[in-house]
């Protein structure tokens, strides 16, 4: 009895497998997607990257008629998820949301993965950092803060993410632009923007260089205030927060971005179709409304521009990280 069922199972499995072998290439090329697609997110459920990925997945699912399953592969400061995207089969059935960390981690020596390890599909979002301080603290505006840092290097402490994270490099870049060294404001590593904003309120640190939307809850609560953003223009959602350029005359801007990419070597037709679908998603009112509600910036770049964008970001990160003493070589 046992033998019989086992043999039956093996036979049917073999049949299914061979059928799959014959049928698969033909179908995969003609009518992608004909089965569910996995969208890997290197960060946890409920965070900003997760939410952005889920709204994109929901729109793709609606337009393409196949489920787009969001899978969170967290840990290792983003290495685990980024590696899962890069090492998946490049058949168009596993894609992922890559984030700014892909231009940073390899300089730190955490991984060999870099922007060129992927098939870029589209850039969808970018958020500039802000400079947040305690609401009832001594600093009234960004000028006063900048003067204090110049007069007392090493006195103030800043936080916003882990050591060598994007907000850390935002701080270093700003300090460098003012002609200061990276250690003029020592970095206190944290588990993300929310804990850093809490520590700001608790009096543990003096400034937080996360994005303004990430600090919004504490700002609304009257515990913190935003003195400036490191961007070319003001954020329409926070019109009272000036840019560094208009206050200090420093033309420095940097940002945390999110885009969609697949493993290297994806078929060109599938990649082109995905980019076109992502453009449709980007232009939809669902996406725009969602991003606006959370205060997230929307930026569009198709595959080739996204690749250039990442290459440029990678080069500027290399020099920023070297000057901060964060690059490994």
């Amino acid at each position, binding site marked *: 009895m046992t033998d019989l069922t086992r043999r039956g199972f093996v036979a049917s499995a073999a049949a299914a497998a061979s059928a799959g072998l014959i049928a698969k290439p033909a179908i995969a090329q003609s009518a992608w997607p004909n089965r569910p697609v996995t969208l890997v997110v290197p960060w946890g459920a409920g965070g900003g990257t997760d939410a952005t990925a889920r709204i994109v997945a929901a729109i793709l699912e609606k337009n393409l008629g196949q489920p787009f399953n969001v899978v969170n592969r967290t840990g290792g400061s983003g290495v685990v998820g980024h590696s899962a995207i890069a090492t998946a089969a490049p058949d168009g059935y596993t894609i992922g949301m890559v984030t700014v960390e892909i231009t940073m981690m390899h300089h730190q020596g955490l991984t060999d993965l870099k922007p060129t390890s992927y098939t870029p599909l589209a850039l969808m979002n970018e958020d500039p950092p802000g400079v947040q301080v305690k609401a009832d603290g001594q600093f009234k505006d960004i000028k006063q803060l900048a003067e204090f840092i110049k007069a007392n290097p090493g006195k103030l402490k800043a936080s916003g993410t882990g050591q060598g994270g994007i907000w850390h490099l935002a701080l270093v870049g700003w300090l460098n632009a003012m002609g200061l060294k990276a250690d003029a404001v020592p970095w206190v590593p944290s588990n993300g923007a929310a804990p850093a904003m809490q520590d700001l309120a608790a009096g543990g640190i003096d400034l937080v260089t996360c994005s303004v939307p990430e600090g919004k809850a*504490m700002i609304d609560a009257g515990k913190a205030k935003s003195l400036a953003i490191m961007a070319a223009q003001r954020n329409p959602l926070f019109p009272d927060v000036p840019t560094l350029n208009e206050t200090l005359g420093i033309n420095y801007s940097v940002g945390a971005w999110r885009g969609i990419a697949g493993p290297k070597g994806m078929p060109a037709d599938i990649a082109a179709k995905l980019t076109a679908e992502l453009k449709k998603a980007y232009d939809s009112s669902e996406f725009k409304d969602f991003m606006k509600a959370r205060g997230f910036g929307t930026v569009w770049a198709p595959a080739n521009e996204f690749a250039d964008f990442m290459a440029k970001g990678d080069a500027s990160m290399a020099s920023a990280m070297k000057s901060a003493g964060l690059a490994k070589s």
Partner: protein
Amino acid sequence: MDVILTALGLVFQADVLLTILLSSMFGIFVGAMPGLTATMATALLVPVTFFMPPVQALSAIVSATTMAIFAGDIPGTLLRIPGTPASAAYADESYMMAKKGETELNLGVNLVFSVLGGLVGVAALIFMAPSLAELAINFSSYEYFWLALLGLTCAILIATEDALKGFIALLLGLAIGTIGIDPAAGVPRFTYGNVDLLSGVSFIPVMIGVFAVSELLRNAPTINNAAHTFAQSIGNIFTGIADVFRRYWVNFLRGSILGTVIGALPGAGADIAAWVSYAVSKRASKEPEKFGTGHIEGIVDATSANNSALGGAWIPALVFGIPGDSITAIVIGVLYMKNMNPGPSVFLQNPQFIYAVFIVFIIANLLMLPIGWVAIKSAKRILSVPRNVLSPIILMFCIVGSFAITNSDYAILIMLIGGVVGWILEENGFPVAPIILGLVLGEMLEQTFMTSMIKSDGSILPFVSRPIAGILAALTLVVWVGMAWRMITDRKALPGAA
């Protein structure tokens, strides 16, 4: 008043009530399955809530997590396998009670005090959210350092037989916790170029391994004894509850308050609340020698605490957008998605939604009584399944639960290694619970110490000069001196007793 009526109107809709009922059943299932945690229940609900209106989405999460934390007690009692990390602190104690034939009393206490503790947490959320949030927000890394140290001390406090072996197990947990990216400097440690090891060793697969897999291994030699089942039948679970309440109402209050406060502190949730309140209960008990032998006292504290922590964790999440635990870390994302941006203004902009959440919290806790009762009754049927059938099924759920943590087979490997190591340790008289505590609190201890030292430019003065930090430091010292004193006096007493 209008707002409350509007909120009631939002909740008492057929689809919302159905959501509460279905999510509750989902929560009971997830919580009772070893390896599927309340946090995972929330994460699994995120894609579903994406398509729901705000009240329905939040109702789903509130009901599922409320049920899951209680349901974790059921396998803890019956199989010595905690269903969620929040039940790990007293799984041993509960199992000892079951062995003594007190399964009914144990599960009844777990159910009733989970409901009561949960209601205390909700009451705090409703009436004291702003003031508790103000307290919680004042905790910086200096304060968390002392909290982590006090938490680790619990491992020794609750070590039943041999404090030294408990200490060694704790150090093992701390050592495993150092694998991965160093939380302060961002440098990889003990990763050998392996991508999976970069993410460290998650405590949940380890917990499943050392509790569940090791238990399966222990039972393996006698597995074909087909007549043998895991536990005896379950009668009326509500007998004797009134007695327990009369005797241990102080424990209930203490556990619930402690749980609420720990839940409200960002970064510590139901699992730590259970450990701490169980240890406090033993420390304050008139009969500490009964702890670990199947004694109900500590369970009253801990099972109240882990459910009250759930409501507590929503306090900083709603008021400041700061997660109180890993569940609310996900909830904050859902709140943003539903345009209910956390912050004090959420009470002004969308008060009807917040009141609706409060109402759902109360309903879910009350609903726990009948649903929990049914769950316990059906657990009894599961237990009458022969072991050689049940064991492989449990193992399967362990594998599924571990896989879900990392979405890869890496966690399954951790679970299996944890199982073998846990089995060897327990055969040699080492308790396994401290390993989990070391893993949970090790990173917090290291990170808070390192970041504090960076902030203070290497001075240790702020560890004691900040008011709350100073109080916590003094408390830690008192506990340690008390432990040392007891050890010395015990040693003096020993020769006399022998």
